[in-house]
């Protein structure tokens, strides 16, 4: 998401309801203003569409991470259990990887999920600037509790549009 570090003055409008927020975002964009950021205390379904954000590619990344995890698991089980130190466990065939594959499925599954989930979370945090030690980007702490804030560059006539859209508080900074 875009950072608002540029010195241009911004307007921040607070809303008290997620449904009002979504309709307000639609109204503001319909009036021709570009929203730079929305802060919410919880994920609001449909907000990304209302804001016109482009589709996330995290799903494709997760799929790739999953494939990576699967590859690691296959390599790991093959090297440890077949190539390097084959053992007779419960009389199961260990001549090649394929014959012993059913025994490895839990590992294949777990590592696929592990890689997909962990790498996806880290990717998400880094891309959004939420990595550990990053400065909090939160102009108003109330948006972590029960308020929703729309932030956008100041422009003529904007305040009227915001008022009409149901904002409970408008601040220019």
């Amino acid at each position: 998401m875009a950072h608002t570090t540029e010195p241009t003055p911004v307007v921040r409008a607070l809303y008290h309801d997620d449904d009002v927020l979504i309709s307000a975002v639609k109204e503001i964009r319909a009036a021709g203003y570009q929203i730079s950021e929305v802060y919410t205390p919880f994920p609001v379904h449909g907000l990304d569409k209302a804001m016109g954000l482009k589709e996330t590619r995290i799903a494709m990344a997760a799929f790739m991470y999953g494939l990576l995890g699967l590859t690691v698991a296959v390599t790991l089980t093959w090297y440890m259990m077949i190539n390097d130190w084959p053992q007779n466990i419960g009389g199961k065939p260990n001549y090649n990887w394929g014959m012993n594959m059913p025994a490895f499925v839990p590992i294949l599954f777990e590592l696929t999920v592990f890689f997909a989930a962990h790498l996806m979370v880290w990717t998400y945090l880094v891309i959004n600037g939420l990595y550990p030690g990053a400065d909090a980007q939160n102009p108003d702490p109330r948006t972590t509790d029960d308020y929703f804030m729309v932030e956008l560059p100041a422009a003529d006539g904007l305040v009227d549009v915001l008022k009409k859209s149901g904002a409970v508080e408008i601040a220019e900074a």
Partner: protein
Amino acid sequence: MLCPLPLIRLLPNLPPNLTALEDMFVFTSKMKLLAGSLTLVGLVFLLIGFNTDYSSHSAEGHGDAVAHAEDHGAAAHGEAASGAAPTEEAHAEEAHAEEAVVMDAVDEEAEAHESMEHADADHAAVTHEADAHAADAHEGHGATHDLSANRPWAAFLVNSIFFLGIGIGTLFFLAIQYAAQVGWSAGLIRVFEAVAMFVSIPLLGILFLAVTGGMHMHHLWHWMAEGIMDPASANYDPIIAGKEAYLNVPFFTVRTLAYLVIWAGTAYLLRRNSLREDAMPKGQNMFFTQRKLAATFIVLYAVTSSTSAWDWVMSIDTHWFSTLFGWYTFAGMFVTAMTVLNLLVMYLRLNNHLPWINANHQHDLGKFMFAFSVFWTYLWFSQYMLIWYSNIPEEVTYYLPRFKGEYKPLFVMMVAMNFIFPILVLMSRDAKRIFGFIGLAAVFVLAGHWMDHYIMIMPGAVGYDYGFGFAELGGILFYAGLFLWVTLSQLAKAPLKLQNHPMLTESEHFHQ
């Protein structure tokens, strides 16, 4: 036109101001013709199928093959210990030299295993088992108990279970919508109801099979064979006799009847209340009645879903048991139902019957189809891996014809169609919103789960006398025609949008 079920005729009629709405679904004469002709052609095929002689294969020794295969897994030592039926063994092995080679490898494993663990008490039981199976092999030669005679009945059971899945899976899903007070699906409840009303028809089909089995017209369920529980009989099987308290014809028939009453009764009550609600003033009274009914049904279904799977499917392989079997069957049925619902909603949307339903709703239905395909695989593999790993003869018998025998190609193809195909086609978010992808995945998943039920039933019921002929195709057409008839006539009976459901607005505004 005659309604297929008297229960359906008891449903309340809606006031004319509701049934005259412009967006009413119409069960066109074209669709009536399609549904009717499918049913009739299916019926004719079924009659041909039931009057075909399938025993020609057994002359080549096919009939014995599976009993033979199961013997080997069940008790590799049994033959030697009891010295049972050497002629039959030789005969079967002659005909199936190829299989014998495959099974030999298994024998070695089983032998090694047994010498360690089955030395004393267990060994006696295993030996008995072999005796019993040898007795089966004996009978395989007689005209009366030829396994191939089960073929049309088994084919009808496969189709009954497959189509039952569509009805009962949807009924369960409908019950969840009320019990969990689901909002997003409120606009689709009429579609769920229409499909759930179909549940009674395959249930009647299974009741027919249960009654004819009890009358010894077929021995689809092995424990129904004559004399199997009688110590004086040559056919006596002590392991099966030990299960007599549960597996006996009167109790079995009563259970089948109980499932029919509980399942079809719930479908009927949910539908009746929903129709009544349409004519009522706005309010939530009926919603909470429905919720109690749905919650009660879910508790009952939690038990009956497992017991019905044991009764109708697992008891075919009477010696074998799996504690996971009920869930495994349920998962297959539920994903079948979700797939059919996806197709039906897609059809209705394409014809502009559901303007209040959008890609978000379809996406959620698609998620169910995707998630339960994975869930089914999870259960399938959980069952398979434990049995493969422990390699105990009494458990591993089940997988010998399926994974080592002739059924292997079907088995592997079925797993691929039910797991790899949906996971690759439906994983992406967009795919669940595009008709082409859903439709493609749906066709494969439906075919895959039909094959799954086929492989669950056929090896135990007919051995290697399987095939795809008039009996199988006839059952599919027969049930498909009835499904279309019941579902579409139910869709046409009431407005496709509930009139007073409290969650309707939420459903219309659903987005993700």
